[in-house]
């Protein structure tokens, strides 16, 4: 699974989670899980610390031979996504400065909406603010509110995206031991729904 991260430094939970004008953000919240994180907000991408070396998400993926690219604007990010040739993309934006003429949260939601158009279903999407997050992946068995440590985020993301977790990691994957939703084809429930939708026609 591809990984797309929006790293929103300084983005406040109250402004992200409680604003129903952020249509795209809100839809993603409802699709996946979201919540609050304890710990240093800067450390969400840390997988493990060993003496002088810190293993981060991007370094782990790069070591696995994956294409990892950082962006600081939507336009460049979108053209990379459109190319289809990517494994992990991360957009970094700062929400702490302020002073702009437009609402940075609304601007972000707009850019997010456009960016989503260029994804395939096989993507894990993470939006990470200051001690808060939203995580969406089709196989994610967790929905609704979830809390934990900032250090749990990267192991959870890697497990959902299908990477074997290295030993000696600091955090704990939330989905460890859980069955992931990898169903394909029409379930019995979906077949029943299809039958119901069509048979109201009268002719059949």
């Amino acid at each position: 699974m591809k990984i797309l991260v929006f790293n929103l430094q300084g983005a406040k939970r109250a402004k992200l989670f409680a604003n129903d004008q952020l249509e795209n953000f809100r839809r993603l919240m409802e699709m996946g899980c979201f919540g609050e994180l304890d710990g240093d907000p800067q450390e969400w991408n840390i997988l493990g610390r060993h003496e002088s070396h810190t293993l981060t998400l991007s370094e782990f993926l790069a070591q696995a031979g994956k294409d990892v690219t950082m962006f600081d604007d939507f336009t460049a990010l979108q053209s990379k996504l459109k190319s289809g040739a990517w494994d992990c993309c991360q957009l970094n934006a700062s929400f702490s400065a302020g002073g702009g003429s437009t609402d940075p949260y609304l601007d972000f939601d707009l850019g997010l909406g456009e960016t989503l158009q260029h994804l395939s279903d096989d993507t894990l999407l993470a939006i990470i603010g200051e001690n808060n997050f939203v995580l969406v992946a089709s196989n994610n068995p967790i929905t609704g509110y979830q809390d934990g440590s900032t250090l749990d985020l990267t192991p959870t993301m890697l497990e959902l995206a299908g990477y074997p977790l290295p030993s000696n990691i600091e955090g704990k994957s939330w989905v460890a031991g859980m069955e992931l939703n990898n169903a394909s084809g029409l379930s019995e429930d979906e077949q029943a729904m299809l039958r119901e939708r069509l048979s109201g026609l009268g002719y059949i």
Partner: protein
Amino acid sequence: MKKVIVIGLDGFEPKIVEAMLARGELLNLMKLREQGGYSRLKTTASAQTPVAWSTFSTGTNPGGHGIFDFLTRDTKTYLPLMALSRYEQKNAFVLPKVVNMRRGTPFWDLLSAKDVESTILRIPCAYPPDKVKGRMLSGVGVPDLRGGFGTPTFYSTRTGLHGEASEKVVTVSVENGKVATYVIGPRDPKTKSDHKFDINIQIDQPNNKIIIMSQGQPDKVEVGLGKWSKWLKVKFKVGMMQSVSGIVRFNLRQITPDFELYASPVNFETEEPLFPISSPQEYAHDLAMKIGRYYTAGMAEDHDGLNNERFDESSYLDQCRIVLRERRKMMEFELGRFEKGFFFCLFDTPDRLAHMFWRFTEPSHPANRGDDVSRYAKVIEEHYRECDEIVGEAMKHADNDTLFVVLSDHGMNSFQRGLNLNTWLHDNGYLALKSGFKPGESGDFFQNVDWDKTRAFAMGLGCIFLNRKGREANGILSDGDVENVQAGIVSGLTGLVDPVRSTVAVRSVARGADVYHGPYANEAPDLVVNFSEGYRVSWDTPLGGVPQGLFADNTKKWGGDHVIDPALASGVLFMNKKFSAGSPGLVDLAPTILNAFGVAKGAAMEGSDLLS
């Protein structure tokens, strides 16, 4: 011409109309016939509402607009799909969009380009609606809140009932004259459970009525025994911040010994419909503010409720009257402010009513099973008289500079016997079941069909598809085999005799390639079965069933149908201007209407101006 007014009467049958005219009835239509003329109107292959009205709209055969049947199949899964529109989602992270599967160029696009305004009410196969200069309200094709053609709910204190067709059954209990239950809303795809809206029912037995109390609008709705309630607006909370509104009507079947209540499918509410049902988007609600709430679902009449015997004929008739009255109000409101341009309003009720009351005109119909047919024998004719009155009302808005047209998309006929088309294909070696299974041991959706050995399968209302390599997921027929298989099915089915009645059930079988041409012809069924009067595909065929036996009596209350040989299912055409004799068809209307405004017909349009 300054104005063109077209009144559509869905399924208006020429044989009934002609007999009534001959008896001196239907005075407004008679007047039209004298002013201009009358003719039977050639319908489409197949003779179905969405196919026929799409041809009216675009002026092309179905190969030019892509609608061949109510249903189509998914080539990847062999599952039936709704053919009229599709929900497309680029990926899992974005909202689905509804896409109209009627393609081609409708004539109102050409009018809009020339600044001619249109008012188009309840046109089928325009969901989502076309962007027109003027206003459009979508008709057949608009789903209910559960995304289908209509899911009603039946509440009963009887246990062990199961839902028929699309219906849901809710078992309730009466405690101290009260029932606590809920209206069923959309399915949550994540939790696979239904969203619910709580209602509390207070039974007033001495007065033979109930009061439904809820957080909806209004907070109290009264339902009399055997009567339809007013609309109740309900709201389903579908997410943390999101809710979806709908409107529902109830019919109280009985209070004792068992409490039984019917709820209509939940229709979109006009203020915040799930998907747009009008153009401009706010038009549907502006209209509701003027004339009151109205049915928004494409299939407004609750034929399923009657078919499943959840209410009786008189309740169904009442509901048909409600729908007709609503539609008439719409028409009168819009004609009242209509000064120039194109006007269209479709009345679906003649079709929905005749489907359900046809059996009363034929005492020997297998669905009657001893019912006294005399009580309802004249219902269809009475309804035709009401439609004639509506025509008269609309004619008041026609002056010398107006082309006034009344037409139907197809006729109506008897449906007494059904042919199990997949069983025929099985018995003749075209469709194979998995080893060990016999017809009758396979459910719908082609359960237990062995695709690796199947050369042809039937789906929809008389369509046969070949299982072709490179097209169907498990296709086995190569291009070179197609001709042989088609020829075999055509010669085997043509002239097929129903052994019980010793009559020919299948008049002919048309090859898709012979009847369809144009950019979407490649989506057409490979063969279309043309049934004789009195026959149709059986109830088990459209969704891919392979039942036991070739023919079955139609014992359902849905005793009339029109999906037979199109040559036997013509509609009617009345115009207030003299038009050329010959055999006008639905394809001719688009060029005729365009030419009335001096607008050239579209390049793909196949018909010709009937007035020239």
